[in-house]
């Protein structure tokens, strides 16, 4: 291999891509999408995933009277809800507007803390949720009740401490299941008090077990829609560069005879291919990494992320080279690439819906998102490394197919 030839061919590829306005536009579009994804929804998890698709992504806490409770709520919004919860003092907003209606934007919910209608009546707490999606507000509801209870516990303890009472009031609730635990405890207590009024032979038969409730996130499903979309963007970038652009431009060169001109120069077939083998995976990995880093900057330091990109780029290269060998014209190359994408994505979807597990295992596009998800959510396990190894095997297989096709058809 002669460096001046490789350098010239790589330089030529760079120039060709820089003059390809369509390709540049699509690349900028992808970067724009990544930036949008990065700008909106800094926090991941349930709220952002709901926000991007359905349910709520903003919760308005509208209150009519200030006080320590409101202050406590304001100061105790958890990190994952901080960008979603908005406090609004409503009196100022509706003064002089007796028939004022509060309108909430689409995709938002509200918790209204209205004053008591009668002087001795209870405060009104109203939960407003969109459509029939009662569950969508669950996250905010849980936070509200937990924080409200914590505030009142703190207030009671402060008063008790001030009056010299050493016995503190029950501790503030912790965990996401405190409501169910309390509810069940109350039920057990009610059953116990009922038992004390019944004859022993009947009472002995009444038995409700004590329960310990705990909520834990499922590791594999902990990623939100933001991660899913960013993984899809990264995967699409690899596909776009290696499976779409590579065969499309190679076939264009072949079609207009420039490939022949290069082949007749001192550049050998090996050097012409080597330049492409260097250029396309490098550009694909760089482009995919830019998209990934824009959405989740922390992946920059994740070795698994980089390994995944390299393996996926190598696999995409094999697919792209195979298409470049089979397709005769630029048009057929781009059509084949698009058809491939459609067939594979529908295939994966169909197999998943019909519980067919063997076929998707053979598709790089099945493993890619899983590995990228693991890398982006920083939840890489040994299983992910094994999957990476398996995907590397698939990449080798694809490149072997490309080699066979090249030997059989050349570049037509």
């Amino acid at each position, binding site marked *: 291999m002669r460096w*001046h*030839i490789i*350098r*010239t*061919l790589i*330089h*030529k590829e760079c*120039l*060709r891509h820089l*003059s*390809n306005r369509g390709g540049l536009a699509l690349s900028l579009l992808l970067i724009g999408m990544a930036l949008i994804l990065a700008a909106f929804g800094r926090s991941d998890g349930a709220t952002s995933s709901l926000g991007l698709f359905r349910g709520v992504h903003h919760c308005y806490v509208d209150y009519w009277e200030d006080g320590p409770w409101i202050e406590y709520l304001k100061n105790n919004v958890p990190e994952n809800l901080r960008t979603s919860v908005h406090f609004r003092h409503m009196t100022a907003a509706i003064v002089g507007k007796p028939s004022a209606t509060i309108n909430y934007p689409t995709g938002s919910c509200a918790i209204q803390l209205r004053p008591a209608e009668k002087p001795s009546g209870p405060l009104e707490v109203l939960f407003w949720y969109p459509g029939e999606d009662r569950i969508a507000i669950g996250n905010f509801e849980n936070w509200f009740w937990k924080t409200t209870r914590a505030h009142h516990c703190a207030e009671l303890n402060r008063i008790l401490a001030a009056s010299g009472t050493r016995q503190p009031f029950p501790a503030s609730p912790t965990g996401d299941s405190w409501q169910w635990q309390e509810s069940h405890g109350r039920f057990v207590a009610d059953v116990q008090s009922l038992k004390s009024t019944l004859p022993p032979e009947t009472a002995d038969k009444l038995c409700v077990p004590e329960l310990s409730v705990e909520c834990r996130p499922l590791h594999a499903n902990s990623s939100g829609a933001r991660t899913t979309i960013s993984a899809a963007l990264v995967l699409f970038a690899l596909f776009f560069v290696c499976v779409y652009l590579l065969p499309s431009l190679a076939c264009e060169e072949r079609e*207009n*005879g*420039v490939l*022949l*001109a*290069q082949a*007749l*120069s*001192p*550049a*050998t077939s090996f050097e012409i291919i080597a330049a492409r083998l260097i250029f396309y995976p490098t550009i694909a990995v760089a482009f995919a990494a830019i998209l990934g880093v824009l959405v989740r900057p922390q992946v920059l330091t994740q070795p698994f992320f980089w390994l995944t990109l390299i393996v996926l780029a190598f696999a995409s290269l094999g697919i792209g080279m195979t298409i470049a060998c089979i397709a005769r014209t630029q048009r057929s190359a781009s059509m084949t690439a698009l058809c491939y994408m459609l067939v594979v994505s529908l295939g994966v979807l169909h197999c998943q819906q019909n519980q067919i597990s063997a076929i998707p295992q053979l598709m790089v596009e099945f493993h890619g998102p899983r590995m990228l998800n693991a890398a982006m959510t920083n939840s890489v396990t040994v299983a992910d490394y094994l999957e990476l190894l398996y995907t590397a095997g698939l990449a080798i297989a694809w490149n072997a197919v490309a080699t066979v096709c090249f030997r059989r058809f050349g570049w037509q």
Partner: protein
Amino acid sequence: MLPPPAICIQGLTVEYGKFIAVDQLDLEIRRGELFGLLGPNGAGKSTTLKVLIGQRRPTNGSVKILGHDVVREWSLIKPKFGYVPDKENHFDEFTGRRNLQIFAGLYDVPRTRIHECLKMVELDEAADLQVKRYSLGMRKKLLLARAILHRPEILYLDEPTANLDVYSASIVHRILRNMLADGSTIILTTHNMKEVQEICHRVAILCKGCLIALDTPLALRQQHHHRTADLICGDGSKLQLNLDRETDRNRLVELLHAGSVASMHTREFDFHDAFLKLTGQAFD
């Protein structure tokens, strides 16, 4: 002792399935020669050229270029030849200069040579225009500039002056003559008989894959000459006199003496006619 030939073709046969495109072709092209390869469509010119540029393996026979076998020692031959195809093949989105820069990089040619070549084909002023804005003639000249970039020892040209105006064609001829003066060997295929007469040292005429004539254009003229005089007399009548016949010669003298010849045109030799006579086919 004669120097070894630049190209030595012995018993070259190329088959496409059952179709024989080139049949037992023997040809020697000398160094420093401008050699014309002629023939009607399907004669085997393009196939022969394909073998010479390594795009087609011979079915039988051997081809040696500058002493190297075209199959076994292809890598030694590659840097030594230039090729001007009949169909232009440029990176249309790049400028003319950028196109040459890419190939200069592949041939490891200094940048100064790019400007030299552009100037030679008189494209230096249009060098920074995108090739897609070039006229057909400009594209053709850019092909020539690309082919001579690395000062090849052998230059293959497939219809180099097709679509060129008279002036551009003269530029191409001038460049070819300069290359010959520098010791290059040039092989061209053309359908332009005037061009063949003007610039070719020797000509091979192929028909149906076989070599049917091989000589200098002058020798072919002499072998296939055809001395005829076409006269238009004062009364408007037309006469055709064969100058090889005594009676016709005497008649011509009589008419000239009588002053009744309004116009006379001689056609001792016509390469086109000779070609048609040799190939027995319509010339395309």
